[in-house]
């Protein structure tokens, strides 16, 4: 595939993986918004996996697992993504350098903790961050990075980037890099969009295990309800704070990706000529507002501005689950 000369342009995005993938697709000639990357790869979700612990807290996600967007865009856009992991740091670095020398832009999975340009308070051991390398500074060898969650392009010294790419632990990136082998082509929106939406509806309403989708939310509500409300509240508060961090802090665009998916539905409505989706986008924005209310109520309880009341938080979560159940039911009917 011939490569366009280095005219890469950085764009600010909410989420790392959708931001990187929409940037790659745009760079190779097909305009694609971040919400479209999220929606078309059916990456919206909800999951509560209490048996996977990160820093002693259960895994909670408002989206599909890492790499879902990279993989999920291949079929609708007819783009073949090549992914490579490495056992040795030296090989991983050499491969990245040679791809950049060819003029490619390369997606990388990294840890957040070892990227020096992240603000100190955001540096946790989270291994599934994504950035895009688009060149090197010939003078000092620094990598030129487009980290979608930052407004401006970043740079990173080789030793730091190697450390971040080869961090170990849960979701270890193993130096993962990815780049397209073929150019993306514009899909038949009238087919690709309904197929992607149907998959999201299926995940949210009909997942085979009760920890995914609406049933996952209900399960979290039950876990919150059972938190001790008296005595030492430290642990209880860390648990509910964790829910909010996963919903807001991890670059979701607010409301646990619900606003971003609403933007996708709005765009999809005109591309696929299905005006019903635009109306549903409005409903989903309101659901996003509901998630923000939950975040605010939780934060106030953490700082003792309101008494800690797990039953109230559980009720808010149940209300969200009920609203999303109705919403995805309507979406299901609208897309048939």
């Amino acid at each position, binding site marked *: 595939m011939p490569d366009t000369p280095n005219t890469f342009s950085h764009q*600010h*995005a*909410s989420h790392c993986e959708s931001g990187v993938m929409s940037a790659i697709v745009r760079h190779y000639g097909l305009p694609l918004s*971040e*919400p479209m990357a999220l929606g078309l790869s059916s990456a919206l979700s909800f999951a509560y996996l209490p048996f996977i*612990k990160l*820093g*002693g807290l259960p895994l909670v996600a408002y989206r599909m697992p890492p790499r879902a967007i990279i993989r999920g865009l291949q079929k609708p856009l007819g783009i073949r993504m090549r992914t490579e992991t490495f056992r040795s740091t030296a090989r991983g670095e050499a491969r990245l350098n040679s791809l950049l020398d060819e003029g490619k832009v390369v997606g990388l999975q990294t840890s957040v*903790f*070892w990227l020096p340009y992240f*603000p*100190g*308070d*955001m*540096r*946790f*051991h989270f291994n599934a961050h994504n950035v895009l390398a688009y060149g090197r500074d010939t003078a000092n060898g620094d990598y030129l990075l487009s980290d979608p*969650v*930052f*407004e401006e392009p970043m740079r990173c010294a080789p030793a730091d980037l190697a*450390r971040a790419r080869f*961090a*170990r*632990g*849960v979701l270890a990136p193993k130096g993962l890099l990815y780049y397209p082998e073929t150019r993306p082509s514009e899909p038949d929106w009238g087919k690709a969009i309904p197929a992607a939406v149907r998959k999201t509806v299926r995940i949210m309403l009909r997942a085979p295990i009760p920890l995914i989708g609406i049933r996952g939310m209900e399960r979290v509500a039950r876990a919150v309800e059972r938190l001790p409300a008296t005595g030492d509240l*430290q642990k209880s*508060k*860390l648990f509910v*704070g*964790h829910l*909010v*961090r996963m919903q*807001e*802090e991890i*670059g979701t*665009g*607010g*409301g646990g990706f619900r*606003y*971003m998916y*609403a*933007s996708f539905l*709005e765009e999809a409505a005109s591309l696929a000529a299905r005006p019903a989706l635009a109306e549903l*986008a409005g409903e989903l*924005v309101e659901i*996003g*507002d509901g998630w*923000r209310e939950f*975040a*605010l109520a*939780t*934060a*106030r309880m*953490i*700082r003792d501005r309101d008494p800690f009341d797990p039953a109230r938080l559980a009720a808010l979560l149940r209300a969200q689950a009920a609203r999303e159940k109705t919403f995805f039911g309507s979406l299901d009917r609208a897309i048939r």
Partner: protein
Amino acid sequence: MDANEVPQEGNATLGGHRKAMYARGADGRIGIVPSSGWEAEEIVTLQAVEDLDRLAADARKRALAGSTSALEYHMYKARMDLTLLSQVSGIWAWRVRRHLRPDTFARLRPALLARYAEAMGISVDQLKRVD
């Protein structure tokens, strides 16, 4: 959320950066609006940071009193816990747990010390000290 409702409260944990939020603009379309931060989010981020700081400060006190090793202090200071340190260093968790005892830690081979230091991105000298 409308564009004019996107919080601009200057969340200190963002270190002066702005994050992209999706909100409904004046033209009625949903799109990106940069946000300088939301207090609710600042509260939950600081909660996590403060919890790790508290663990590190507590381990520091115990390390200075001689009831735990410097390793425990550095582990929390590197924002890790026992499971993560074990995964990153490739040393079994039960061994890491043993190395939290000051007497065992004082007798550690240089090779093991180097693995811990490397895992946490500090020098062996730093690892042995509690600053």
